[in-house]
């Protein structure tokens, strides 16, 4: 498929555990975004990559959250010492990049449940 792929689609974990969520963007897209969406709310910006570097990580809620994109393609969102409040759908999006934000292409999301 040519779309944005996110794995796992569902993840259930216990409070205090470590979680990794993976995003495989559309081939050739240099910009990659992570958003978090709670039930009944709009997506909340977490971090934006242009290539391998995090151009804007102002949305990461605290130092338990970290994201990488080492080769400028696949990205991993890492959450340490998970808390029940981290439960949400984590959305990844990509775009061709450029000076202005055009259309974002979203994946289906990873639903994280922290028990």
């Amino acid at each position, binding site marked *: 498929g040519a779309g944005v792929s996110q794995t796992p689609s569902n993840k259930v974990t216990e409070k205090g555990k470590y979680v990794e969520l993976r995003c495989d963007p559309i081939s050739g897209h240099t910009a990659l975004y992570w958003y978090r969406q709670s039930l009944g709310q*709009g997506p909340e910006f977490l971090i934006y990559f*242009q290539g391998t570097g995090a151009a*804007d990580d102002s949305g990461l809620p605290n130092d338990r959250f970290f994201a990488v994109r080492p080769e400028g393609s696949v990205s991993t969102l890492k959450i340490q010492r998970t808390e029940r409040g981290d439960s949400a759908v984590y959305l990844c*999006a990509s775009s061709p*990049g450029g*000076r202005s934000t055009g259309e*974002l*292409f*979203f994946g*289906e999301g990873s639903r994280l449940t922290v028990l």
Partner: protein
Amino acid sequence: SQQGEEDPQALSIQEGENATMNCSYKTSINNLQWYRQNSGRGLVHLILIRSNEREKHSGRLRVTLDTSKKSSSLLITASRAADTASYFCATEVTGTASKLTFGTGTRLQVTL
């Protein structure tokens, strides 16, 4: 934080009627986009309108932008049951290039 707020939060109409959703935002923008989300799925881009544009059309969609009032509207004409979804506006705030900030969404229900 949410930059935009959609109004109404929920809208229920019958098939064939028009649906209008409004979005208000707080700060100067480069562009405003509308997205659609089916329950439990990812978001799909519908239309983008730049800050120097006032109106755009795409199929049954019509979007307007009033930068003086910091508001936008999305009109879906001749609605269909398949239009049932949540609709979000998203803004690229001036000075924050390449980051979209989403609103709270309007849940549209189209009944037969």
